[in-house]
């Protein structure tokens, strides 16, 4: 443990907290420092044991009902008589409005371009999809079921691959609406985290495209591939979400 990088840089590198430049510098250091390399392997071994142990405790359904029942009466969601489609519209509109009104961080971005609006829409859509019954229109772990399902519902054919072997099983798909067009949303799972991948043709992607963005604690990774534009959205940590994006690109 003589290497002084062990203390600060190594954990920060391991946790994906270094900026790009320091990240590259540290990777160079790793090549020449067996101590740090070994320490990193130990940390990775421990993390993989922790992941494999599936320690995440999900809230029981009953708790959700209990909380809803305990909230003041006007807080309980009113039954919605409108058709589902228009309700979704309202929900998206409301979520964007809320994000704009409440989000101090969002304010400077107004007028900051299409990309930000799309990112906001995607986060709103992702959050909504996490509510019961909204995650998928077609539930299947079979890419050969999910892909044909989109036939005739979209003016393009989204690529659908299952990454179950790499730890990101496909669990379904649904239609969504982002950036003034119908898009495909593919749903993957990483342990207890869900990932929505929004896919649409590259020709209607926003002009300014960052690679990653974090909004309200949700991570977004954007990329283009084979004429399609992709955005993966999840509460999964950025390092793993990026790894997932790279797997999809292959």
């Amino acid at each position: 443990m003589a290497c002084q990088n062990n203390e600060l840089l190594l954990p920060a590198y391991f946790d994906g907290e270094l900026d790009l430049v320091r990240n590259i510098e540290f990777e160079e250091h790793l090549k020449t420092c067996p101590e740090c390399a070994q320490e990193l392997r130990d940390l990775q071994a421990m993390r993989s044991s922790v992941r494999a142990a599936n320690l995440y405790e999900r809230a029981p359904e009953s708790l959700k009902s209990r909380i809803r029942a305990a909230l003041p009466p006007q807080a309980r969601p009113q039954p919605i008589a409108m058709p589902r489609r228009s309700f979704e519209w309202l929900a998206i509109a409301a979520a964007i409005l809320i994000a704009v009104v409440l989000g101090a961080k969002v304010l400077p971005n107004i007028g900051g371009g299409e990309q930000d609006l799309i990112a906001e829409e995607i986060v709103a859509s992702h959050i909504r999809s996490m509510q019961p019954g909204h995650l998928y229109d077609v539930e299947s772990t079979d890419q050969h079921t999910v892909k044909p399902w989109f036939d005739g519902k979209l003016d393009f054919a989204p690529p659908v691959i299952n990454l179950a072997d790499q730890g990101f099983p496909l669990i379904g798909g649904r239609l969504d609406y982002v950036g003034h067009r119908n898009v495909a949303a593919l749903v993957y799972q990483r342990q207890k985290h869900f990932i929505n991948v929004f896919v649409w043709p590259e020709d209607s992607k926003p002009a300014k495209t960052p690679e990653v963005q974090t909004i309200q604690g949700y991570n977004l990774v954007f990329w283009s591939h084979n004429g399609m534009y992709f955005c993966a959205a999840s509460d999964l940590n950025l390092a793993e979400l990026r790894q997932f994006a790279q797997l999809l690109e292959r």
Partner: protein
Amino acid sequence: MEEKRGAGQAGAFDQVVLPHLDAAYNLARWLVRNTHDAEDIVQEAYLRAFKFFGGYQGGDARAWVLKIVRNTSYTFLEKNRPADLSEEFDEKIHTDTAEQPGAEAALLQSADTRMVRDALNELPVNFREVLVLRELEGMAYKEIAEVMGKPIGTVMSGLARGRAQLRDRLLHMRPEAHSEVTGKMRGEVRTKVRNELPNELSTELSEKDEE
């Protein structure tokens, strides 16, 4: 008018706060180590979150919710199980037991589910908390700092010590190492028994501990 605003706020609450219920429950469950108490704490925290929702300034909703859950959990522990907050971990360094480079990584990799669960469960609450937020919740240092209301430096040192202890514990828990385990074991067994008991019994047990 009042009614209308209430409903609008409730809609926002539904969109912004409710999606983090799993994260809230996971944190409470790991902090108080019992499902029954965790459910009560999350319910209380959510009622508080609803009450304070007007003061939510946007930004990271998950961190905002988890901060409330954390505070509620600590208040619960202070009141009901103060001993949990003063738990000390035996910080012996066992790293010199590694026979050769790489041996430790192999051992850590082979730790089974129950070992990992127990090892994490036995850590002092401050280290357990930071590890749960980082490794299970996948939060960035900045977000963890926000949840804990502490500087990033404290998060980093907590993580480093928590990881060292977890590693130590996993290596120590190897089946052949079990015979070395000393008096500390009794406390562990008690916690384990308590966690596996039905809720009513486990509450009773905690009450007995206090006497």
